[in-house]
């Protein structure tokens, strides 16, 4: 196991593979752009000025470091020490801005004057629209029509920030289809456009780049928990759609074999209902959006229709590094249903005065399932990946609060 964990930090390999996962399954037109991005990222990593600029913006614009908050009343409820990594306090309200900021700086280095993005819940779209406004770059965001309805607040935010929001009506009109449409735009406008993918998915080098930019979450959390508790946590819990907030908090702990990493997928109306989006829990090897990973698909290899109350988790694929960590046994992937997530959301609101995003609520909800194994000495960190303002319509309807 020691050997295996030591290898994690070295992945992906030169072909963009995490074991059998990852790779670059895209039309030929994009290969030169992926090569260009790979080189630009490698050069940026070697350039202290790049990291300094990024750190400066993360501190003064995003508001990092985010707190590692001891959730006292939640801890009382579960009989363990529960900390929340407060990514919901980032500028724009979610962890997504960490990656958007890193990638806009890369786009600047590559001299690309136009930015596109896909978005599900709208948090990534808002983050990209925000950094595009900040750096004066043209921005277009693809969003499934279904999602533009359930996340109307974020559509308005993106527009106010000066981005063009393009509703996508093809397929299921959710995140998967918005991603297809963003890739089609990129294939068409690749010479002047950088595509800011919002999760640890897509063709190499995206899963690596997004992971690295999100790893600031885990680096901070690791230092903060050591300072507060003098030791590493027993468990880290994060929700997984594409898996960027989970990858960001997990990655700096990969070589800490005693830290249990738990990714929580969306079981929707239940795994048996077929209406879910839990590829790691209930999917199989497949290729979507440029990389091989676990995928929800039917018996013919067609991508399955997914469901989650949370637009940000409503995606049939998942990052290839999560697939690798699952197979290697380094992380464990579980799932909670829409209803359980709604209960988690209310519990956090009532106990801590924090209204989290529906995505994040899946991670919170998993605490309930861990209850039997918790002791007063158990230390947990839950990645509080985003705030819940955007979900108020959905929550009000589901809970009949109006």
């Amino acid at each position, binding site marked *: 196991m020691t050997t295996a964990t030591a290898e994690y930090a070295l992945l992906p390999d030169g072909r963009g593979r995490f074991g059998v996962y990852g790779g670059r399954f*895209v039309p030929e037109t994009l290969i030169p752009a992926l090569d260009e991005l790979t080189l630009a990222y490698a050069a940026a990593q070697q350039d202290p000025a790049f990291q300094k600029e990024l750190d400066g913006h993360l501190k003064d614009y995003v508001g990092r470091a985010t707190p590692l908050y001891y959730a006292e009343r939640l801890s009382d409820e579960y009989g363990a020490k529960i900390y929340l990594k407060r990514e919901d306090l980032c500028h724009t309200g979610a962890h997504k801005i960490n990656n958007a900021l890193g990638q806009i700086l890369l786009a600047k280095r590559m001299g690309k004057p136009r930015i596109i993005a896909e978005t599900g819940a709208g948090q990534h779209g808002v983050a990209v629209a925000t950094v595009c406004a900040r750096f004066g770059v043209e921005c277009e965001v693809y969003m499934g029509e279904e999602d533009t309805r359930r996340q109307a607040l974020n559509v308005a935010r993106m527009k106010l920030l000066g981005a063009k929001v393009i509703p996508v009506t093809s397929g299921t009109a959710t995140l998967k289809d918005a991603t297809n449409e963003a890739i089609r735009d990129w294939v068409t406008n690749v010479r002047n456009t950088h595509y800011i993918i919002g999760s640890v998915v897509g063709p190499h080098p995206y899963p690596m780049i997004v992971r690295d930019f999100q790893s600031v979450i885990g680096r901070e959390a690791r230092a903060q928990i050591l300072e507060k508790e003098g030791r590493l946590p027993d468990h880290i819990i994060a929700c997984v759609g594409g898996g960027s907030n989970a990858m960001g908090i997990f990655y700096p702990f990969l070589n800490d074999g005693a830290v249990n990493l738990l990714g929580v997928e969306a079981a929707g109306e239940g795994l048996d209902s077929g209406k879910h989006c839990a590829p790691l829990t209930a999917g199989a090897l497949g*290729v979507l*959006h440029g990389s091989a990973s676990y995928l929800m698909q039917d018996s013919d290899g067609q991508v399955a229709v997914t469901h989650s109350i949370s637009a940000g988790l409503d995606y049939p694929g998942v990052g290839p590094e999560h697939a690798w960590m699952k197979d290697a046994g380094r992380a464990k992937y579980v799932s909670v249903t829409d209803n359980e997530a709604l209960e988690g959301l209310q519990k956090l609101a009532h106990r801590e005065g924090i209204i989290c995003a529906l995505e994040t609520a899946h991670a919170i909800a998993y605490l309930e399932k861990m209850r039997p194994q918790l002791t007063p000495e158990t230390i947990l960190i839950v990645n509080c990946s985003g705030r819940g303002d955007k979900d108020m319509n959905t929550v009000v309807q589901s809970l009949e609060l109006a």
Partner: protein
Amino acid sequence: MSRLSQHFAALRSRNEKALVCFVTAGDPNPDATVALVETLAKAGADCVEIGIPFSDPLADGPSIQASSQRALEKGMTVRKSLEVIRRIRARVPDLPLIPMTYYNPIRHFGLAEYARQAKEAGADGHIVTDLTPEEAEEWKRICIAEELDTVFLLAPTSTTARIEIVTALSDGFVYCVSRTGVTGLRDDIPAELRDVVTNIKAYTDKPVFVGFGISRPEHVERIVAFADGVVVGTSLVNLIHKERDNPALLDIVYQYVASLKAATKS
């Protein structure tokens, strides 16, 4: 020499350029696809690509997306698509046939088993739109064993290094994408296309065919002045959809394809 290579060598010896047509298997229905491909052959098509529908065709524009979706909604599968190819092969024994799809459906089917069945059904070659040579090692090995040609694509963005790799690995012909973008109708032919094709031809003697955005005889005429052939997909898919209930569908398709083929000889 494969049927594809033989066929295109014969065209070249006659100083003739190739017309490749694309249809989606099962749109509007399997019987129609069989009859349509037979008509394409009669009208002069030199090769037909049979699109096996995939739920997420990210290299395709709205027309072929919609066509794939219609076929899937009517129950089309990889297995049924192979059956359509088998029936087409029975009607047109000598027409080069190339299934074209994305990686996930055939990977899910099982690459080796799929290649075996495709060959047995009568396919001569294969295109996998999202599989570039770097990711195609296993697929290429399997296709060599099954004597199934693999056609790879080049784009205007392809570097010299990539042109060398793709022209070396592509069998039958090299598929040059006319522009950065997805499949679909365009009015114009990109100004840079002649240079792109001429540059590719400097690296290979294999025929270079141009596809994406070609719909009119005048497009064909202009492109065959510097390329070895053209691929026409979206306009044909649109025409078939528009006239699907017209009893004269096959005649209309025949006229259209014959006009494109005539343009390859001008």
